[in-house]
């Protein structure tokens, strides 16, 4: 797991937060109409952590966030399981939701993370 909570600790954030939004990206059961067993995520490691941190910091500054936590799975993630978890806290709702959208866009564009499908036909999921 790549786990980079960024910004003040939740304890401090909660003092002024008015909106907490949690996003979960879930592995869907099919891709291009073909049944999946799951996805295998690989990453370019020191860089992936660094990019997530950079993206989180940039958004925290741009949207005045109180807390940003990004967790991305590595390795095999079975269908219906969570591969990405993003938590954002802000004083108000609008910046929290805008930040979430921006962070997810940037993560998909910049994070050096790759997935490959493990099709349901394969008896042995690759781990």
């Amino acid at each position: 797991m790549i786990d980079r909570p960024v910004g003040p600790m939740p304890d401090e954030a909660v003092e002024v937060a008015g909106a907490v939004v949690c996003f979960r990206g879930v592995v869907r059961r099919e891709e291009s109409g073909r049944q999946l067993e799951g996805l295998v995520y690989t990453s370019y490691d020191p860089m992936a952590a660094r990019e997530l941190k950079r993206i989180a910091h940039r958004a925290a500054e741009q949207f005045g966030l109180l807390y940003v936590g990004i967790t991305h799975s590595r390795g095999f993630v079975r269908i219906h399981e969570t591969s990405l978890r993003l938590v954002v806290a802000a004083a108000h709702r609008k910046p929290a939701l805008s930040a979430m959208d921006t962070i997810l866009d940037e993560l998909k564009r910049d994070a050096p993370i790759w997935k490959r499908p493990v099709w349901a036909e394969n008896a042995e999921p690759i781990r």
Partner: protein
Amino acid sequence: MKIQVLLFGPQAVITGRDRVLVEVDGVAPTPASVKDALRQALPQLAATLDQSRLAINHQYTTEDTPLCESDEVALIGMVSGG
């Protein structure tokens, strides 16, 4: 100057390798010239090189940043996180 470039994801699958050593001209070659060298060395990458970026020491870099021999160079393309 010889530069080792790390490959990931589909680009590693397409080429069957996770790193490649390319020969680049000049004392301080740029990412643009590394890309040209990759295009020659691994023609399978041609279709995806334009939408790929080079990272130097774990940071995305501009096409004209001069490279040092000690840099860790990686080709980042076709990312699919999230």
